[in-house]
């Protein structure tokens, strides 16, 4: 059984993101957070019962069993397994597009969601769109593999509008990054 590797998720995301941005200072700061993580490798779970509980990306959670692939304006759209906020698809944007006038955050929290069409897990970057008042359409709060702030890249409560001209949260997108490794 595979375990969630928060460091690997963050690293994959960062590598793909690095080629598309010039925000070096921000990357450098983010690097501190992510590079520091390997100093504290994911611990081997000491609970004797851990082998029985499947927390892996492939585990068919309640969300995964009811997810669909046709309507990205619904909270049960498969990519939204760990999204928290207003769906940009309902606010004039798209599943990976910010609405007009908003600005995508260059960093994000991440999730691993199962596409029910092929049964495989994919890495999703939940990138906030920033710089406008909060959109009040299609509020969702899904929590597959969502953790607390000490693992920030897996926490969906944080306002991720870092490196944008305004930190005002508007809505959230779900950008497909890669197959989960």
């Amino acid at each position, binding site marked *: 059984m595979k*375990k*969630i590797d*928060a460091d690997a998720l963050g690293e994959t995301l960062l590598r793909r993101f690095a080629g598309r941005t010039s925000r070096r200072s*921000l990357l450098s*700061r*983010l690097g*501190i*957070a992510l590079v*520091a*993580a390997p*100093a*504290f*490798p*994911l*611990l081997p*779970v*000491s*609970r004797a*019962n*851990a082998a*029985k*509980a*499947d*927390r892996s990306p492939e*585990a*068919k*959670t*309640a*969300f995964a069993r009811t997810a669909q692939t046709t309507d990205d304006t619904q909270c049960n759209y498969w990519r939204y397994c760990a999204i928290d906020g207003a769906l940009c698809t309902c606010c004039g944007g798209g599943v990976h597009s910010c609405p007009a006038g908003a600005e995508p955050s260059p*960093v994000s929290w991440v999730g691993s969601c199962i596409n029910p069409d092929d049964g495989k897990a994919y890495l999703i970057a939940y990138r906030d769109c920033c*710089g*406008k*008042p*909060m959109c009040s359409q299609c509020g969702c*709060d899904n*929590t*597959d*593999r*969502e*953790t*607390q*702030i*000490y*693992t*920030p890249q*897996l926490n969906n*409560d*944080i*306002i991720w*509008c*870092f490196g944008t*001209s*305004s*930190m*005002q*949260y508007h809505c959230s997108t779900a950008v497909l990054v890669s197959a989960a490794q």
Partner: protein
Amino acid sequence: MKLAETRLLASCAALALLAIASIGGPAVAQDVESETSDVLKLEPPRPEWAFVDGGFMVDGTAIFDTKTGKMKGMVNSSHLADFAFDPAGKYYYVSETIWSKGNRGTRQDMVTVYYTVDLKLQTEIFMPDRILVGERKQNFIVSDDGKWGFVYNLSPASSVNVIDFAKRKFVKTIELPGCAALIPNSAVGFSALCSDGSMATVTVAAAKPTIAHSAPFFSATEDPIFENFAYDKAKQETVMMSYTGLIYTAKMGATPTISAPWSIQTAAGYANAGQTKPLDVAWYPGGRQPMAVHRLSGKLYVLMHMGEYWSHKAPGTEIWVVDLASKKVAKRIVLHEPAGHIEVTQGKEPKIFLNDEHGNGVVLDAETGKEDHKIEGAGAGVIHVLSPA
């Protein structure tokens, strides 16, 4: 009637009303004393009061008397602010962020200080940055002696701002990679939970602050410990709970000692939910503020719901009352409406304060579970109570 004429008539009517108000008006009886506007004051914070944040993107922290169910006042705060008490009862502290042009312009991060008796602004202590998230007690803590404030920051590197409340100034920022969820630790400064499953303890006063890590004791990704845990100043102890319902106790100090965890489900006679296989349904703790401890009686109050794993934000449909000494669930209180936040007042007659995502509050008698008050529009955010000295 044309629009312009309508507006003119409306303006005249308003002026006439103003005139009546200012001279008393001919209809006012001779023996009625005219009133003047004034402003009330409050007592210093009391143990039976609950302080309820407005919730996501809502300003203000409302104060309620849990005995009467009545609102006492409101502390100013911006949305995504964090609230804390001066332990001496003189000040309320608000860690917050504002921009010079409302939603844009120059960002300003500060701890804002208000007198408790008149709720007037006393000063603003500026600092470099802070996390924008809300819904957490552990992102802004005050040392037991009231001298220091610690503000968590994610920018997106992880650090802590140190505030000197005696001098009313920001002192320094301490880098804290891989950790968050701050806990007062009067022996050295503060502690925090970390992504490697350890507790970090930070010696603040040193010229170069030192960070010591405990051995890992929980899994941050497979069975995380909820933030919004409970710190007991008198016992120097922190009670924490994981997603599967494991209860941890940490004795704070220069080298904190963390007890072996035990299961809330086992304490109620069920199987440990950490042993559940995928798809199994069990009773789990959940909500955004899922637990509270009444320090005097050693009772832990937990919002519980039936669900599967990864349902950790689901609101509670029951409160499980756990006796921490005997490690038994002593009582289960069925809720009329699911609740996402829970806190308990710290006096000898404790009251439970609950609220839901719509901001509706409920006060229960903590001994009997009986509903004392319903409070519409109480606030949808974190609930705070004064801790015993």
